[in-house]
């Protein structure tokens, strides 16, 4: 009997132990390999890469227009690479070999290298850590914005217009070898959501640029939000939007937002005379998005009843505009914004600031940053005005954490970086850092570093360059 019990015990133990261990769960785990490539925003990498590829999809090259790209090499070794330039619907690209010395940047005048209509550039650098921004100049307006660090299948712009005296060129850049087909869905005030409203089944051949004149597709729409969806392949989408209406004037250019997000931050923004500020929230999903828009002014409002948190409800496939400058009681001066989805439905949002100053009229549309980071780069950096030797750049910093943070703004120099300014930024309080002590003859690429994650924007003070988001390093 003892032996019988012993054998039965063996069987029992052999089955029970696994059963007990199995209670911990045997659910499938997702395979961990690599990282998802598509981020909503361009980003850099801390680690040194084998190669870096950046995509600048919308660089104008007509007469009176100029498109350049600047490649920053903040590392300690010289980097070589190639800038390949495609013109709208022309298969043969132009290649420009470049070498970027360590701790400096290199400007490539794309419109000079390949005159024509609109160009797209693919910057490939071998090794190192590389950041690329493009500068678009149309007439008197200049916009600097980061290029895309990846391709994606879905891109969105919340802001846009095909109103009278407005030109909206949508650049769809397919840098990959395979052909793809894209649909451009639109949301307008008059027609609402229209699938393929600005182009349906548009073939974009491999390694080519296709520019769509949105004015011809969605005529006379005061506001056109659009989403570009690629069927299968991946593309990069940019826009060239020139506004010359009585209400709005200026240039909006840059890369679209890839995908949507549940949390967005803007470091910049002002309540000033002659300036209007709106947040356009675009919900391309099938569900209604419920969001909280929080405003963090530099100085507290005098009226405690001032509404600093606005509930925003965005129906499916629609766009809602929130007028920030119209909020009663909001004190003048700097502020930051935070948009958070309360029901988890992600959105695309842009903050549009229309400024009318004594010297110029400018407009900016900046997509919210879906990420916070401790390191940010501004490639085009602070150009100085020779006359005053005062840097014309203002860096806006938002501290979304609950603790103060020390932020240093540094100039990228060979062998590392030089501190230009260091400030402490309180939680929820926007900071503005004006640069000083910068050489009058050079274009200074900036490196912003903080103890804890922050959000960084910049704007030029003396030129017509509007707000733009820095490039985070993940």
């Amino acid at each position: 009997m003892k032996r019988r019990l012993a054998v039965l015990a063996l069987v029992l133990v052999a089955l029970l132990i696994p059963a007990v261990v199995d209670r911990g769960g045997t659910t499938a785990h997702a395979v961990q390999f690599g990282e998802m490539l598509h981020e909503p925003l361009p980003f850099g990498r801390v680690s040194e890469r084998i190669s870096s590829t950046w995509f600048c999809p919308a660089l104008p090259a007509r007469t009176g227009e100029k498109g350049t790209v600047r490649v920053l090499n903040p590392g300690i070794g010289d980097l070589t690479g190639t800038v390949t330039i495609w013109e709208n619907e022309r298969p043969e690209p132009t290649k420009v070999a470049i070498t970027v010395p360590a701790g400096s940047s290199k400007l490539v005048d794309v419109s000079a290298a390949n005159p024509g209509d609109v160009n797209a550039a693919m910057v490939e650098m071998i090794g190192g850590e590389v950041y690329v921004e493009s500068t678009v100049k149309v007439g008197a307006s200049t916009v600097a914005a980061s290029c895309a660090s990846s391709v994606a299948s879905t891109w969105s712009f919340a802001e846009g217009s095909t109103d009278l005296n407005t030109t909206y060129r949508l650049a769809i850049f397919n840098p990959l070898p395979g052909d793809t087909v894209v649909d451009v869905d639109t949301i307008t005030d008059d027609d609402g959501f229209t699938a393929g409203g600005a182009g349906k089944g548009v073939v974009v051949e491999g390694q080519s640029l296709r520019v769509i004149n949105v004015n011809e597709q969605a005529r006379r729409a005061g506001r056109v939000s659009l989403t570009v969806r690629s069927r299968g392949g991946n593309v990069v989408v940019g826009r060239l939007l020139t506004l010359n209406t009585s209400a709005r004037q200026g240039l909006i250019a840059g890369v679209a937002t890839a995908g949507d997000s549940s949390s967005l931050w803007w470091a910049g923004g002002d309540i000033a005379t002659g300036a209007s500020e709106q947040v356009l929230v675009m919900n391309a999903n099938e569900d209604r998005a419920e969001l909280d828009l929080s405003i963090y002014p530099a100085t507290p409002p005098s009226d405690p009843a001032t509404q600093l948190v606005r509930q925003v409800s965005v129906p499916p496939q629609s766009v809602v505009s929130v007028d920030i400058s119209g909020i009663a009681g909001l004190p003048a001066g700097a502020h930051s914004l935070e948009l958070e989805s309360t029901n988890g439905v992600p959105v695309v949002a842009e903050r549009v600031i229309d400024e009318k100053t004594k010297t110029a009229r400018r407009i900016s549309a900046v997509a919210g940053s879906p990420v916070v980071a401790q390191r940010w780069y501004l490639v085009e950096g602070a150009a100085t005005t020779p006359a005053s030797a005062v840097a014309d750049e203002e860096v806006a910093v938002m501290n979304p954490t609950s603790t103060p943070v020390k932020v240093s703004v540094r100039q990228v120099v060979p062998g590392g970086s030089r501190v230009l300014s260091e400030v402490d930024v309180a939680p929820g309080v926007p900071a503005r850092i004006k640069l000083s002590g910068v050489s009058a003859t050079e274009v200074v690429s900036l490196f912003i570093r903080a103890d804890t994650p922050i959000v960084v924007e910049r704007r030029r003070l003396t030129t017509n360059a509007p707000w733009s988001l820095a490039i985070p390093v993940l």
Partner: protein
Amino acid sequence: MADYPAGTVLTSTMDAPADSTLDPTSEAPAVVTVMVVRDPGPWFPEVLDALAAQDHPNLAHLFVDASTTTGPTEAIAARLPGSVVRRVEGNPGFSALANLAMSLVEGAVFFCFCHDDVALASDAVRLLVEEAYRSNAAIAGPKLLDWERPNHLMSVGLSVDRTGWPIATVEPGELDQEQHDAVRDVFVVPGGVQLVRADLLTALGGFDESVDLVGEDLDLCWRAHLAGGRVLVVPAARARHWQRLSERVGVGAVEERAARHRLQTVLSCTGHWRLLTLVPELVAVTVLEVLGAVLAGKPKRAVPTIRAWGWVVRHLGSIRRARARNAHIRRVPDREVRNLQANGVARLRAALREHGDGQRDDRVGSVAAWFSGGIESLRSGRRTASIAAWLVVLTLLVVGSRRLIFGQLPVVGQFVGFTTRAGSLVSSYFGRWDVGGIGQVRALPTGTMILGLFDAVVPGSGDAARVWLVLTLVIIGWIGIWRLAAPLTRASGGRGRRRHRDNYVGWDDEDGGAMESATWERPRAPRPQIVALALYAGAPLLANTLGNANLQALVVYAAAPWLARILLRAAAIGPFRAERALTLRSQVCTLGLIVGLVTAFVPIGPLLVLVLVAAMALGLVLGGEREGLAALAQVGGFGAVVGAVLNLPWLFDVFGPNASWSQIGTVKPASAPGRGIVALLRFDVGPFGLGWPALLLMAGLLFALLVARQWRFTLAAVLASVVAVFMVIAWSGDRFAVPLPPPEVFLTLAVLGLALGASVAVVAFEQDVTGSSFSLRQPLAFAALACCLIGLVPGVIAVGNGRWQLPKADFTQTLQSLQNRTNEGDFRVLWLGDPATLPGTSWWLADGLGWSLTQGTTHSVTNLWPGSPTAVEDQVRLAVNLAGTQQTQRLGQLLAPMAIRYVIVPNRRAPSYTGAELHPAPASLTEALRSQADLSPVELDSALLIMENTSWLPLHSTMGDSLHTAATRPGDPRSLLSSQLTAGQPVMPVDSGDPRKATGPVPAGRVYVARPPGGWELSGPGVGPRQAAFGWASSFATTGGKVSLRPVRSPIRIAVVVVQLLAWGAVLGLARQREVES
């Protein structure tokens, strides 16, 4: 005795006879006896004397002498001085020699063909001739009597059934009491003596010379029937027949010729329409015959029949020509001939009549003898149950595999494709160069050789061989479990043997009294074997193993019962002790052979056996039986060592210092997380998740554990230990990141334990429960039986699919358009994805993610054992990781030197239209690939993400200056990305039948070969020495002309293989020396 050259005519020709002249003026018809003589025995003078004594008045004698050493001429001359002797060199066969009579003889009315071991009665020829005239017979034959006992009948003519099976009209050893003395029509007159009308013989074209010996009588008589001739037996004419043909030419030769010639005659003489129904009938009879032979434990009996079919398949042309000849001589409708034959498949009735003891040499009796044993068993019910059980499982196997047998076995999982040229696998084994991956120099796996031999031996294309391989493994496993449980059947009295206490000394004392009194019991059905077979075949594990296309587990499935049988014998548990007690050496070698075969496919084979031994030892200890421990450990331990040694030097590579676990274990599919012990107990490890009933299969073993006594309990304890240990191992490998083979491999041994455990339960019920007073044990027994039956339901349900849930197609056709692009240069394909979707064995890329490389688009045997990744192959993995972590968007350029043209990520293991289960690769991987600037998507099937490398270099190509310059730099990613890789013109296409060879003209300049050095050479006029390219590949300067890439045969490797083969042979020889231990 004098010898004479061929063609010598020793005496006068037929027109100048001396004493035995044909007298044209005689009223008696001229008869010539024709005797083919070949090395006759001491009986021959008596044969001659009998001929000399014939009283037919117009008789001459012709001897065709085909003797090998000494001629019988002197004896003939002494006794029949007027005879003609024709000396013939060589042995073209009886028929050809007999046909000489037609050319040598003129004026004969009858030929009397006699064997050289027949002594005719003095009036035999005369009586035959008289009856032939009287009855207008075409062929007539005498009553044949036993040579030594002339009062015993041997044959009075033969009948046949429609399958050509001869039916004797007399019983073996039947006394001649004139009971068969009426003249009557028969279908066949046996070839011992045949009186044939000369004109008919000429019309028939004589004997069919392809029917050289044995069966020529049937063929001639059948054709005589076709021509409208009568065939008579004339019992008044008598002859004694020595009939020891098998002693003269061998039993095997007789049986083989009989089977072949019978089939040949049936197929050539049967009419077209009847043949349509007859051929399936013949096939069915053959299957039954094979089955019967296997069940009788004498599978060799079926060999002649199988070979006969093989011969027929190979000689369809000659059969077609014979049918054409027979069509010309046919004067009688087929139905009339059919009416002369016996009804039904008379073979069974003939077998029933045969009560031979297997000693008879008669070809009818010799085959029927064993068959009659089976028939007797059928009557008794023992074989009925066995045959029924086997018919059920075989039918289920055929039904369950019907779409594979009659359709396609897809290249999925480990069911990879063989090479297109038979024998190339065997030949590759003698080299050290494995073209798998990027190419490695290593000892090739022994399995390569075995699969190569299997491919070469099995008829049909490589695809057919793969199906046969799968089915053969399954059936070997079933035969193994049947044999394994046989001692239990004997212990339960299932064989009906005379049982005596002495046979069971020491293990069944408590039953001694009953045993002693039992002298002969009526045979009972082999219930333990049937139960074991049912559980082993019916447990859902087999269906899931097949569904997972797990070749390794199938090999273990086939081998496990045989392993267990040897180990249980060694442990001397219960009835296994009564099995033939072999010497330790024989047991070790037998086990070593099986372990060697298993290890050739499953590298951990020796470890598996050691664990099995340990588990059995644990069971022995728990079961209170320590006596067999030492022997068990000795046999198991040494057997494992022998098995490992037989697989050297391959195992050095597998377990060597640079080995990777991927050779031993598998990359765990992401789609198969830890299933949990309950799922494993249900054997839910594949496409058949059929719920809880399979859990009930444990009931039999549990019942045995609860009620069994004595040796039965010990055996149950051993089996329970085996089940527990292998369940836990399977669970560990499945639950944790333990690099072990798939759980099916271990669960197979657990199923074996359950199956044999249920078998023990049957014996325990019969011996420990039956006859005892009523208690809980009786209801428990019925509950266990019910549980086992219910537990088999999932396995039976799995049969319905017809292909074990394997997809109905693979990617071969889908990717054919890519494969066809080899005219642009040969290339490799990088496969990435869930290992469940990748054929062959994957290398590890990440947890749940594997990768492999193929030359071309199809996985082959080389992908079953890809070896450990080399440094070059690691570069591929590194490149993929760089792309996956967004370190580069030029993956194509990094893969270009390896000639990787396509990167393919399957998300199913078969095309989407097959509905195969989805196993998506991580989006991070697919998106990384889709975002590469030099990978272009190719749309073929939604189940495949195919990215074409726009930067690829052909496997063999010319080298331009830029490529040459780039190749001089190291092949690290940074150098590659900054290099200009311009592909040259493809050269030297790879041999379609042997991927190790390539030949073709090359222009003057340099040639790039994307292969690391070693194991091959490039030869041809003006080929310079090898230079490294990219640090690992090869480039050669050439002056132009035809060059060849060939594997290099290393004498050392050949010597090693020869030694290995000798080792296999030596172990096999030692294993076959089955002397019984004293």
